[in-house]
Structure formats: C-alpha cells, structure tokens
C-alpha cells in the first residue's frame, strides 16, 4: 500500500505540472492572458504540488498533506471568488469557455478534486512512513523528473508574471504584456 500511496503522490505532482503547462498552452495559443486571481490560482496549484513533492522526497507524512490541504483551500477560495464574481446572468465572464466551463470554474473543480484526493490518500495511506533523513534521497528517477518538471513550470510562471504584469501589480483585465511597452 505504501508503494501505491507514493505512486499517487507522484501522479499528483505530474498532474499539477501538466495543469500548469495546459494553462501556458491556453495563454500562448488562445491568447488567454491570466488575470491577478488567475495567477493566484496558478500559485495555489504549485503550492499543492509542493506538499506532494515533500512526500516524495522525505517520505509520506501528515504534515506534508496538511500543507497541500492549506494550498488547495486557498486555491478554492481564489477560484470560488472569481466564480462568484461572474455567477449572475449578465455579469460577464473572464476569458473563453473550455469544454463548457471557464478556466476559473475548472480551477475550482480541480481544487475540490485535490482535496478529495488527499483525503483518499490519507485514508488508504495507513501509517506515516518513517521520515527519511535530510541527506538521504529515496526518490526514484520518475519522481525526480516530475519534481523538476514542476519546478521548471513554477519558475516559468515567475518569468511570465514579470513579463505580463511588471514587477509589482497586474492589471485587473490585462490586454497585453507589460514588457511590450518597452519593446520596439
């Protein structure tokens, strides 16, 4: 069962990295520029992945699940607020719909799914693994690859935020990249 739980954590890290990659794909292909709340939902996704990554690196521990739970709750709050901003008929929407739902609605679904997934992993995980020492790394190659994929996408989001929003604050409804003002 411990192997299955570790596999679940590895799949979670990969799925979150793929979700961040999909957001980039929509941004660059469909020109869906992320608003401030959208960027915060991306942060929450990365932080959810962070908790799973800690499980892969240091062994499955309730504290690591707790960190992912906090991040998922934060993400649900950010996406839920954006859903409420547009829930009334005639209140408009932000961006295009994908498979019938806007990205913030999909985001809310994803955070609820993460909460449910963590609950299942905790129920079927059994006893916590003994904490691996700080120096001993028990990650296999695939887990390491998934972890670096998530880190690369988190760093790409940092660069993207600067290019889109500038150093401080993003426009509520960004029409273009901040950096384009300084390009010839």
């Amino acid at each position, binding site marked *: 069962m411990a192997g299955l739980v570790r596999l679940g954590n590895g799949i979670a890290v990969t799925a979150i990295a793929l979700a961040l990659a999909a957001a980039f794909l929509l941004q660059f292909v469909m020109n869906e520029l992320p608003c*401030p*709340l959208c*960027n*915060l939902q*991306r*942060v*929450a996704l*990365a*932080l959810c992945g*962070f*908790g799973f*990554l*800690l499980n892969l*690196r*240091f062994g499955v521990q309730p*504290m690591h699940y707790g*960190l992912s739970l*906090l*991040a998922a709750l*934060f993400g649900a*709050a*950010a996406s839920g*607020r954006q859903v*409420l*901003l547009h*829930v*009334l008929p005639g*209140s408009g929407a932000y961006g295009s719909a994908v498979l019938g739902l806007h990205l913030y609605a999909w985001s809310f679904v994803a955070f609820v799914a993460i909460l449910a997934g963590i609950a299942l992993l905790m129920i079927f995980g059994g006893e916590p693994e003994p904490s691996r020492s*700080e*120096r001993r*790394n028990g*990650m296999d190659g695939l887990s*390491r690859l998934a*972890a*670096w994929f*998530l*880190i690369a996408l*988190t*760093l790409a*989001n*940092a*660069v993207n*935020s*600067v290019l889109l*929003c500038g*150093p*401080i*604050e*993003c426009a509520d409804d960004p029409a273009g990249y901040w950096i384009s003002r300084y390009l010839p």
Partner: protein
Amino acid sequence: MTALIFLVTAIGMVAALRGYRGLACGLFGASLLASFAWLYHHASDSLKLAF
C-alpha cells in the same frame, strides 16, 4: 508580486529536493502567507450576488 511568490515557491521546492526540509517548509509558509495577503489585496470589489 506574484512573480516573487512563484520564485520563493520554486526556491523552496529546490531546497526540498536538496534535503533542506525546514527551509522548504518555511518558504512554503512564506509563499502561502504572501498569497493570502495578495488575494486580500485583490478581493476588494464587493460581490453583487442579489437577484
């Protein structure tokens, strides 16, 4: 600001992979607190939910 949060999160993840668990958890906490503060900053519009 969001870029800084992403950067701190990524540094925390690298610290975790390098074996610095305490530092990683601290950077996670800092990122989450900054995210809450930034959400509070952006969630200033009142929600119009009455039909």
